């Protein structure tokens, strides 16, 4: 009975535009964020941070980036991992080749910006082509990124396959030395990722409820009508590519810096692009929160299934067999979900909220 609008009277347009119109939502979100910042780092083990929370944050950023492009603006892309690759390599090179004052958050923003500009270049075909044809042309970004960094070992600092990312890259303004805390610990990496992801998600949310977001969606829904009412269609598409690739680039950099701790080309193979596309589709195209729901599902379910398989059969079968059966189960689950709710997890969540709002009276 707490969860409703009753008693909340909207008296200005500003109030009507709030992120959390229902007070319960606002408090729940605040509590959730406090929990994530002040409780999780103390109770979560290194395993949970390193193998679950950090990768979800990194994947989530890239998924959000793809969702801005595909879900919001309707431009299909399979170049995600390529853009992540650019972001990761540029961050590493900026950190490696800059003077002392450079720090990781700034390097991430710079690398994201460069990736965004590259995104605009690979987004140019979208001026003339749509849908599956665009999907194929974005593959160019994927293959170009891998080819480029393979051909110019300079960007990997002439290492053979991978570079271990040095701990001192994580130090922020000498905080580590001054206060004697380990800035390269998983807790610190987790908090850094969480801060960046929260800021980016908030930015995306603001963007989507303002004129730019409406332009994105207008271009997605009907570009001829958009141009007739005065929306600069080409500019809007290019901006979508820029913002999307910025997010993907930052996501890729977090993926290497916070999660894998090493930088290598193999991380960003084609599979990664597909994985992120699945996250976006399952989470819900066009939903910011959905990008994260999808990430959690796609990332955690295979782990959960394989763990459950091991637990139930306790070695009665070969682990490889159990693993494959788990994958099949997971595939069936996703098919069932998408048939039941093509809008993905975000749509399921919205329906649930609507039910909760009208409960106990169904109408």
């Amino acid at each position, binding site marked *: 009975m707490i969860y409703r609008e009753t008693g909340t009277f909207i008296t200005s347009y500003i109030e009507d535009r709030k992120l959390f119109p229902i007070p319960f939502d606002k408090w729940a979100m605040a509590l959730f964020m406090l929990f994530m910042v002040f409780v999780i780092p103390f109770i979560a083990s290194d395993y949970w941070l390193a193998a679950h929370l950090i990768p979800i944050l990194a994947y989530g950023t890239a998924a959000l980036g793809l969702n801005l492009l595909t879900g919001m603006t309707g431009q299909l892309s399979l170049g995600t991992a390529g853009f992540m690759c650019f972001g990761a390599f540029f961050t590493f090179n900026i950190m490696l080749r800059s003077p002392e004052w450079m720090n990781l958050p700034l390097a991430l923003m710079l690398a994201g910006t460069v990736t965004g500009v590259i995104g605009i270049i690979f987004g140019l075909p979208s001026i003339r082509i749509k849908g599956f044809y665009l999907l194929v042309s974005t593959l160019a970004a994927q293959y170009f990124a891998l080819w480029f960094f393979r051909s110019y070992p300079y960007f990997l600092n002439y290492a053979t396959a991978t570079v271990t990312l040095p701990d001192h890259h994580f130090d922020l303004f000498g905080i580590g030395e001054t206060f004697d805390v380990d800035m390269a610990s998983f807790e610190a990496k987790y908090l850094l990722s969480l801060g960046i992801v929260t800021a980016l998600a908030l930015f*995306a949310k*603001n963007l989507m409820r*303002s*004129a730019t977001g409406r332009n994105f969606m207008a271009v*997605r829904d*009907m570009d001829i009508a958009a141009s*007739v009412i005065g929306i600069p269609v080409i500019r809007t598409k290019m901006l979508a590519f820029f913002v999307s690739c910025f997010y993907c680039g930052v996501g890729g950099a977090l993926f290497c810096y916070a999660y894998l701790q090493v930088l290598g080309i193999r991380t960003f193979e084609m599979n990664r692009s597909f994985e992120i596309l699945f996250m976006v589709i399952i989470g819900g195209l066009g939903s910011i929160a959905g990008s994260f729901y999808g990430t959690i599902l796609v990332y955690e379910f295979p782990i959960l299934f394989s763990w459950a398989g091991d637990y139930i059969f306790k070695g009665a079968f070969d682990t490889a067999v159990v693993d494959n059966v788990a994958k099949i189960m997971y595939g069936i689950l996703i098919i069932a979900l998408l048939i039941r709710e093509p809008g993905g997890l975000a749509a399921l969540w919205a329906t649930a909220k609507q039910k909760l709002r009208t409960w106990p009276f169904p109408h």
Partner: protein
Amino acid sequence: MAAGNPILQIDNITLAFGGVTALNGISFDVAEGEICAVIGPNGAGKSSMLNVISGVYVPQTGRVVFREQDCTRKRPRQIAQLGMARTFQNIALFQGMTVLENILTGRCMKIRSTWIEQGLNIGRARREEVENRRAVEEVIEFLHLQGIRKTPVGKLPYGLQKRVELARALVAEPIMLLQDEPMTGMNLEEKKDMSCFALEINREFGTTIVLIEHDMSVVMDISDHVVVLDYGAKIGDGTPDEIKNNRDVIDAYLGVTH
């Protein structure tokens, strides 16, 4: 409303798709502040005419002059910036958005803040959202759309969708409004509403209106000026009374014995 100087001049427009000539040497003027109806049998080229005016199609020959500026090769966005807005024959709303969001897109040309300001939700961006919302609310009130603000447009019945589309065009504060069959497929009640809206828009805001319509009683009632097209050629141009008595127009509509 009294007709003023020509605000729109169509001069010898020819438009062909491959071998099909959709418009053949069409010329007419639309005076400032009038309601001009473009009529004609199916396939006469009425919608093509509107698409040429709003910049969706580029004609092979001829000129479109709007507010003393040659618009023939301008992009739809540039023409919109000159103060032209339009609605479509097949509703062209953004299906994934709510009524409010759809109408807000109509204010896109009034936005001065950059996307970075909007993403950070600071200063100018916040103010503009409120200003635009206020303008949108005025149009919502004018067209009686209050009850469906937050409804996704896809869920609305046809008549209301047409009205939302009109709202989206109107909120841009156009000097000239093009309406492509605003009343097709509506019942009598809805047609009456739409005609009233057209007249009110014309009288209150002084907006010049060019509309395509099939219902002759509506056309004859509300328009100051009627242009008749048939097979891509202009066969009549004048006041409703002149058109009623025009031999060619009667032949085109009722057929002629050969």
